[in-house]
């Protein structure tokens, strides 16, 4: 199996197909995704890992995304131009989520106004 990324301007759509992996390879990727999901749920229930739970879960989630994008979506075999196109949206979206979470949960938590509060 040969899965390599083409340089921009290098290959046509037909050439991409030649680089696709075997069906068994995809099955293994599916199995790995299921195993990583099981590990995530295991971490969620393990009290001992609660202090490092969040970074571990984000890391495992990111690894699943990378597997799907690289092999199921065949980004590994597309020209780098496509990688840049996808990453621009993905990174901007990630930055936006991270920035707002940091802003509202750590720097300036929302002031909850209770309808039952007096005054």
């Amino acid at each position, binding site marked *: 199996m040969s899965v390599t990324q*083409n340089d*921009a*301007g*290098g*290959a*046509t*759509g037909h*050439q991409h*197909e030649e680089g*696709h992996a075997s*069906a068994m390879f*995809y*099955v293994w*990727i*599916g199995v790995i*995704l*299921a195993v990583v*999901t*099981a590990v*995530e*749920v295991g*971490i*969620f*229930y393990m009290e001992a890992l609660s202090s490092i*739970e*969040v970074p571990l*879960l*984000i890391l*495992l*989630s990111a690894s*699943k*995304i990378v597997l*799907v*994008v690289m*092999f*199921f*979506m*065949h980004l590994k075999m*597309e*020209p780098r*131009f*496509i990688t840049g*196109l*996808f990453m*621009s*949206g*993905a990174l*901007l*979206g*990630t930055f*936006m*989520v991270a920035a*707002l*979470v940091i802003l*509202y*949960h750590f720097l300036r938590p*929302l002031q*909850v*106004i209770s*309808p039952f509060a007096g005054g």
Partner: protein
Amino acid sequence: MPLDTIETNGRNDMAQAAAAVDDHGHTVTGISNWKVGFWTFIASECLFFGTLISTYMVFKGNAVTGPYPADIFDVLHTTVSTTVLLFSSLAMVLALYAVQRANKKVAIFWLLVVIGMGATFLWMEGTSYLKYIDYGLTLTSSTFGSSYFVLTGTHKLHVIIGMVWMSALIWMIARDRIPPAKAETVEIAGLYWHFVDIIWIVIFTLVYLIQ
């Protein structure tokens, strides 16, 4: 510069642009216009779901009234539905693999599996929705409820659109309208389905596991 010269230069530019596209609709990058356009759409969808996820993350801990995430989420139930959706992505890539090898019956089989798994996912999530509503969590009950239902509901709408798309592909494959040379039609539908899967991977971690 005379007006007729400008007009001629304009035509030359258009001719050069046209020359960059070959007979099969491939750009100078070697990728078809459809695929470039679809990857651009996916990049924009990242930002679209980014706003919904941000909204949920900001509001989930600020609900004045319950129920709260920890009170109602059944992680094991959602783990099963997540696994079903992950395996539907595998079925999708196997459908593309079959189309590229002119294996019509196998392609239709795997696309039916994708639809079946999508329906199972929707059914499982639908039962969760009913349970949450029983607990008192609705679209208008709290900021948590509003942001949760808008985020996950938008994702489910994407799953439904994907299932309709897969049904159309089955219809086209059954009528020999997608030969191996046109496998990109299935590949682009696959990109959409895998992206929907990716979004659920993010939602599963940020919404259900990190409460």
